[in-house]
């Protein structure tokens, strides 16, 4: 056992995971060796059509066998049909013990629980949620889940830490020679950013589309020279679950209050000036922060440089208005973003490698001024937990949390102080996802706590005079005063989840819940 610099006591080796590289600080691990490369291959003009009749034919052609690693992207979100369909086909073909390596899973993938129980899927390297998370938390998987951030995952791929045997890439449009686009087609999802590294590094790449376009396709996101096979299916997903419609800024007063506090903090900072870059999520508080910041930009005549991350209509409109020069889009959340990425040259698709991989010559998050994130809980050292819920169940992925927090000059976590009776500011988080050393402020309805190492922000906020500053100790005390003392989570010794930091070190582990 070793206590890492996030204060967690972690075994030096974990069954089903192997030897542990311990977390030593956000910028401490130096990579060695070269980038990974897939086997060379040659193609000639005797084969100008990569299409195969169905998924099973593609699985056979790809050489997929029991025990191998298969990858998927999550751009079709909760509308995705592809992961379930491929796993059903594998089960029918008698393939077992697969390592599932998705960029994320959604509620629709609860269908996979039967394949986990029957042994088709042996391990998940990626986020788990809902019923799969509950199953894993209760000890229903033989091998621990490994969680990586949106930057940690391409790092694992490009460094050869994880070798993908077959990447199945859901493609809203493909031509017969494997040029893929997310921007067009009945199942359009916009950016295909999370699929890029998989296309580039997987030993075999299978595109699955429901829109076979004449060669060459338009708006090509992933080019033909990465793609080995193309399969056409009836439908790759349900558009209603792929993109949301217009998201309106919340009128919930509590969320608006938290958002207003966060926006004032941004406006008080040295970063609120021409050229500001900005990332928020699509959640209620995040979007409201963006709305307040937009209003302040208009009022003070400030023009931003770029908006990053998951892109929403809100950011698209800000760019149209001239409040951003560019949008760098790893994931398009709504119809307006999908349309924009297909039409506007200033709306740029970026890969997850470009977005957040710490092991390249510079990823997008490094240029970020400010990011607004959420968390299920934060603690006295500003550590944030986004993976586990109050009952100790592993229910959420890391997303870009670690990456944007590490990259941005000003990292703000917004959260209500209480969710029901559950306090969100605690003495010590149950799981450390993102270390406090890269978190600058925690914004709640009860006040704003700035990390004491950022005296510059504290001074600026005081100067502004309209920010209710508190200390983290005060927030924790306030929360405990309202909720009373929590009993600890009861767990077994067995580790069911490994939380990697973006550099591949282990920052925390999640243990199996004790049976009630």
């Amino acid at each position, binding site marked *: 056992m070793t206590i890492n610099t996030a204060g967690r006591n972690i075994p030096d080796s974990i069954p089903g995971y192997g030897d542990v590289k311990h977390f030593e600080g956000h910028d401490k691990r130096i990579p060695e060796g070269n980038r990974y490369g897939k086997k060379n291959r040659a193609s000639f003009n005797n084969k100008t059509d990569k299409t195969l009749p169905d998924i099973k034919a593609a699985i056979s052609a790809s050489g997929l066998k029991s025990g191998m690693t298969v990858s998927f992207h999550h751009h079709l979100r909760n509308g995705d049909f592809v992961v379930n369909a491929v796993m059903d086909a594998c089960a029918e073909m008698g393939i077992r013990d697969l390592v599932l390596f998705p960029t994320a899973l959604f509620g629709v993938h609860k269908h996979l629980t039967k394949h986990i129980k029957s042994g088709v899927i042996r391990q998940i390297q990626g986020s788990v949620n809902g019923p799969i998370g509950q199953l894993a938390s209760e000890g229903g998987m033989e091998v621990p889940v490994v969680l990586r951030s949106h930057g940690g995952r391409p790092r694992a791929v490009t460094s050869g830490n994880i070798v993908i045997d077959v990447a199945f890439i859901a493609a809203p449009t493909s031509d017969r020679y494997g040029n893929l686009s997310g921007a067009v087609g009945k199942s359009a999802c916009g950016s295909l950013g999370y699929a890029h590294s998989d296309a580039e590094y997987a030993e075999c790449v299978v595109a699955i589309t429901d829109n076979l376009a004449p060669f060459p396709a338009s708006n090509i996101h992933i080019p033909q020279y990465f793609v080995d096979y193309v399969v056409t299916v009836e439908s790759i997903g349900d558009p209603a679950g792929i993109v949301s419609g217009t998201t309106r800024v919340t*009128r919930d*007063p*509590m969320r*608006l*209050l938290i958002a207003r506090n966060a926006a004032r903090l941004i406006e008080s900072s040295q970063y609120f000036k021409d050229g500001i870059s900005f990332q928020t999520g699509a959640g209620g508080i995040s979007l409201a922060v963006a709305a307040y910041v937009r209003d302040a930009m208009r009022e003070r005549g400030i023009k931003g440089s770029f908006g990053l991350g998951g892109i929403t209509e809100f950011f698209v409109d800000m760019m149209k208005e001239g409040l951003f020069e560019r949008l760098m889009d790893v994931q398009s959340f709504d119809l307006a973003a999908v349309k924009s990425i297909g039409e506007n040259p200033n709306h740029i698709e970026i890969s997850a490698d470009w977005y957040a991989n710490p092991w390249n010559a510079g990823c997008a998050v490094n240029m970020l001024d400010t990011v607004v994130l959420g968390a299920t809980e934060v603690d006295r050292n500003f550590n944030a937990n986004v993976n586990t819920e109050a009952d100790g169940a592993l229910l959420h992925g890391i997303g870009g949390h670690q990456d944007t927090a590490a990259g941005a000059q000003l990292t703000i976590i917004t959260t209500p102080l209480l969710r029901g009776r559950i306090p969100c500011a605690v003495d010590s988080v149950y799981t450390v996802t993102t270390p406090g050393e890269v978190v600058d402020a925690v914004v709640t*309805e009860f006040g704003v706590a700035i990390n004491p190492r950022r005296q510059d922000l504290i001074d600026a906020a005081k100067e502004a005079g309209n920010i209710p500053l508190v200390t983290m100790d005060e927030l924790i005390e306030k929360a405990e005063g*309202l909720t009373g003392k929590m009993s600890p989570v009861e767990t077994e010794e067995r580790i069911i989840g490994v939380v990697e930091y973006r550099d591949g070190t282990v920052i925390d582990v999640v243990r199996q819940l004790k049976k009630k």
Partner: protein
Amino acid sequence: MKLRRTKLYLPGNNPNMLLRGHLFGPDGVILDLEDAVAMSEKDAARILVRDVLTRGDFGDCEVTVRINAMDTDLWRTDIETVVPCGIDGIRIPKVENPKDVALMGEALSEIESKAGIPVGKTLIFCLLETALGIWRSYEIATASKRVAAICPGGEDLRADLKTTRSENSEELIGPRRIVVLAAHAAGVDALDTVYADITNDAGLRRETEWVKQLGFQGKSVIHPNQIPIIHDVFTPTAKEIEQAKRIVEAAAEAAAKGLGAVQVDGRMVDRPVVKRAEFTLQRAGLKSGGEK
């Protein structure tokens, strides 16, 4: 003078609002035992409000409780429960008889002395929700030294006036003018009724500008999102602040020299104008508010 730009109603049986309402930054909160609580829940709300008053936190807010009307058999238990918790005031609905206000004053004194609270500490805010109440505003405002403000009603008053709501509330122009006049004659605050259309931000702003111009000091609030808009209207402009600063400084200078009247910008400035300027600075957050 105490700032009373916004008084946020917190439904008395709603833990979420009772515990977090003050976070929205109103000048005051009104824990409501009257209209916001169903008849069958009066007992449970009273216990909850008592506990929140005892153990909760309201920041810098002026804390008042709207009790049930004096023509019910609930009001005595209401004040016996909440006054010993040490609140700033009670809000009495449907006041139309100055004698009731005097009676309330006596009842409060009795409870205060039993509970060891300074007699007279608990202020009275009178809601005038009938034509008769509006007509007697001045008598009501002067019926007890405890009266801190009088407030015209909204829907109840419209009903009593045998009229309905119009877009610009023309039907309430007369009552509002009477209440302002009576309040200032009696030396108490005039606080306006709520703006019911909670999603109409522009309408709220228009109405607030109008009542501010009439002479009201603030409004009751039924939704937290209304607070920033009302505060914005009541916040003095940069020009008003500058002028107020010059007046206050000139007055201080004159007082130091032992002079009575002073001149600012070529105009004579007397005592009420200085007080008005001090109030402007207080509204701008540049001068802390003392007790009334």
